[in-house]
C-alpha cells in the first residue's frame, strides 16, 4: 500500500533521473567493474602521455613535477625553426615520402593487375604468397640482408662487376647520395605484396557482368583492363592515394635507424629520427617533444583534411 502512495507522489524530476541512472549502473555493475581496469590502462598509457606533451612548453628537468618546471612557451619550437638542421630534415622527409608516393604507391597497383592476369591458378597463388613474404620479416632482418647483398663485397656488386657496369665496387650503404634510392627500393620490396592485397580484393569485387558486356562490345584484353578493371578500382586507388598524402610526414623511422649510418645522416635524417636523437639519445626531452608535437599537429590536420576529401570522393572514410 505504501509503495503505491510513494509511486503516485510527485517526485523531483532531477532526483528521479538520478535514481534512474543509479539503478541502471547497479544493474550493469558487472560491466562497469570490467571497465575499471580498461579505463585505468587507457588513462595511464594513452591519456597521461597526452598530458605529458606539456613538456614541450616547459623547461623540463627529469624527476621534477611538470608544474614546478619553468614555463618557456614556444621557445623550443622557435629553436627548431631557427636551427640549421631544419632545411635538411624537411628536405629528407619530403624527398623520401615523395619518392614513396611516386614509386611506392603505383607499384602495388601494377602488381595486383599483373597477378590478376595470371592464368594458372597455382602460380597465381604462389606469386601472391611470395610477394608478401617481406612484409612479415622485421626491418632488422631486411637491414641484415641489405648489408650482405649490397655491401662492397656483396652479391650485387659482384654481379655489377661481372656485367661490366662498374669497375670498382660501389659503397651503396655508406654514400649519402644513394640513400634515398636505397630506402625507396627497400620500402617497395617490403611493402609491394602486402599493398597489393587490397587492390586484388577490389578487383575481385568487380561485377562479372561488366566483363560480359565488354566482350559483347568487342573489348580486347587490354581494353578490359583499361575500361573495366581500372575504373572498377578507381575509388580504392584515389582513397589510398589521399590517405598516403595525409601521412606525408611519416617518412619511415625504423628503416633509417637501421640502414642509415653516420656517413649517410645528411640524407637519412627525417623529422622522426631527429626528434628521437635529440629527445631521447641526447636527453633534450623538451626539444624533442616540441618537434614531435609539431609533426603530429601538422600530420593530424593533413589526415583530417585528406579524409574530408576522401569522403567526398567516395562513401568510405577512415573515421
Amino acid at each position, binding site marked *: 500500500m505504501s509503495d503505491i502512495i510513494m509511486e503516485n507522489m510527485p517526485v523531483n524530476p532531477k532526483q528521479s533521473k538520478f535514481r534512474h541512472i543509479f539503478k541502471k549502473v547497479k544493474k550493469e555493475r558487472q560491466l562497469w567493474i*570490467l571497465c575499471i581496469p580498461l579505463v585505468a590502462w587507457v588513462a595511464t598509457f594513452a591519456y597521461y*602521455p597526452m598530458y605529458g606533451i606539456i613538456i614541450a612548453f616547459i623547461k623540463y628537468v627529469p624527476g621534477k613535477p611538470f608544474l614546478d618546471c619553468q614555463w618557456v612557451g614556444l621557445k623550443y619550437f622557435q629553436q627548431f625553426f631557427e636551427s640549421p638542421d631544419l632545411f635538411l630534415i624537411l628536405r629528407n622527409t619530403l624527398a623520401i615520402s615523395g619518392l614513396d608516393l611516386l614509386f611506392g604507391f603505383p607499384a602495388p597497383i601494377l602488381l595486383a593487375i599483373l597477378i590478376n592476369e595470371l592464368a594458372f591458378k597455382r602460380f597465381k597463388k*604462389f606469386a601472391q604468397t611470395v610477394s608478401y613474404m617481406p612484409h612479415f620479416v622485421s626491418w632488422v632482418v631486411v637491414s641484415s640482408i641489405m648489408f650482405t647483398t649490397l655491401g662492397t663485397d656483396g652479391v650485387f656488386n659482384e654481379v655489377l662487376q661481372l656485367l661490366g657496369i662498374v669497375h670498382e665496387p660501389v659503397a651503396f650503404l655508406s654514400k649519402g647520395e644513394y640513400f634515398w634510392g636505397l630506402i625507396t627500393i627497400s620500402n617497395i620490396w617490403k611493402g609491394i605484396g602486402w599493398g597489393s592485397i587490397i587492390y586484388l*580484393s577490389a578487383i575481385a569485387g568487380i561485377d562479372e557482368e561488366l566483363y560480359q558486356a565488354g566482350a559483347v562490345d568487342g573489348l580486347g584484353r587490354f581494353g*578490359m583492363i583499361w575500361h573495366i578493371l581500372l575504373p572498377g578500382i578507381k575509388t580504392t586507388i584515389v582513397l589510398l592515394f589521399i590517405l598516403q598524402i595525409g601521412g606525408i610526414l611519416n617518412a619511415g623511422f625504423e628503416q633509417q635507424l637501421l640502414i642509415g649510418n653516420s656517413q649517410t645522416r645528411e640524407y637519412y635524417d627525417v623529422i622522426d629520427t631527429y626528434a628521437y636523437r635529440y629527445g631521447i639519445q641526447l636527453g633534450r626531452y623538451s626539444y624533442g617533444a616540441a618537434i614531435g608535437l609539431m609533426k603530429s599537429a601538422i600530420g*593530424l590536420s593533413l589526415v583530417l583534411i585528406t579524409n574530408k576529401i576522401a569522403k567526398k570522393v567516395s562513401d568510405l*572514410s577512415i573515421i
Partner: protein
Amino acid sequence: MKKYYKDTIGSRIFDIFNVVFMIVFCFFVIYPFYNQFVISLNEGTDAMRGGLYFYPRKISFEGYHWLFQNPHLLKGAVISVFRVLVGTGTCLFATGLLAYIVTLRDFSGRRFMRVLFVVTMYFSGGLIPTYLLISSLGLTNSFNVYWIPGLINAYYMLLIASYIQNLPESMVEAPRIDGCSELRIYCQIILPLSLPVFAAVAVYLAVQHWNAWFDVMIYNPSGRWDTLQIYLRRLLLEMDMVQNLQNEMLIQSKFKNLKPLTFRAATTIVVTVPILVVYPFLQKYFIGGITIGAVKG
C-alpha cells in the same frame, strides 16, 4: 574468373611477358633470403672471398653450431617466444573484452568506452612523453614493458567489434538470464564464436611482437631482456660487440673459421625461419582481417 577476351597474339605475348616478369619478381623476393642461407652454410674464411651465389662452396655448420651453444642467443630466443605468447595473449584477451563491451547494445557506458579508445587512434602523447612515463613507472629493464604498454589496441578493438556485432544476440541473452557472469559469457561464448577474427588479430600481434626491436632498444638498455631481433641488431651495428665475440673465439680457439659475415647470416636465418614457416598457413586469417578492415573502412 572466366576469360571473356579473345586470344590474340598480343594477349599471348602479354601472358608470356607476365609469367616471365612474375618469375623474376619472385626471384628478387626469395633470392636475398636464399643468399643469406648459402652464406650461413659456408665456411667463414672461404665466404670472405665472395662469389657465393647459389650453393655453398665449402659446407660448414659452424655458424649454427656457434649459435646453438651461445647462451645469449638461446636466452634471446626464449625471451622472444615468451614475449610473443604473453604479448599476444594478453592483448587479445583485453582488446577482445573491450570489443565485447562496446558492442553490448543495452550497456549505458558503451558509447563512452568506444569514444575513449577510438580517440587514442588519432591522438597520442608521442614518443618522448611515453618514454618518460614508462621510465617513471619503473617499467624499464623489465619484461613487463613488452606487454603492458601495448595491452589494448583501438584498431583491433574495432576489427573484433565489427565481427562480434554480427553474432546473433540471442546467443548471449539466454545465459545472461540464467545468471551467467559477463566475464564468463565473454570467455565461453563470444571468444569461441569469434575465433576467425581473433585468429586474424593474433597473427598480426604475434608477428608484431616477434619483429619488435625498437622498444627493446630504448626500454631495455641493460640487455637483460634482449630478444632475438635486438641481438641480431647488435651483431649488425655494434662493432665492439662483434670484435669481442671474435676475440673470445680466438682465445678459446673455437670457431676459428667463423667470420662476422657467416654468423650474422646464420642469426638472420634463425630469426626469419619461424615467420617463413608460419605465415603461408595463416594467409586466410590475415587476408580475412584486411577485408574486414576494408569493409568497415
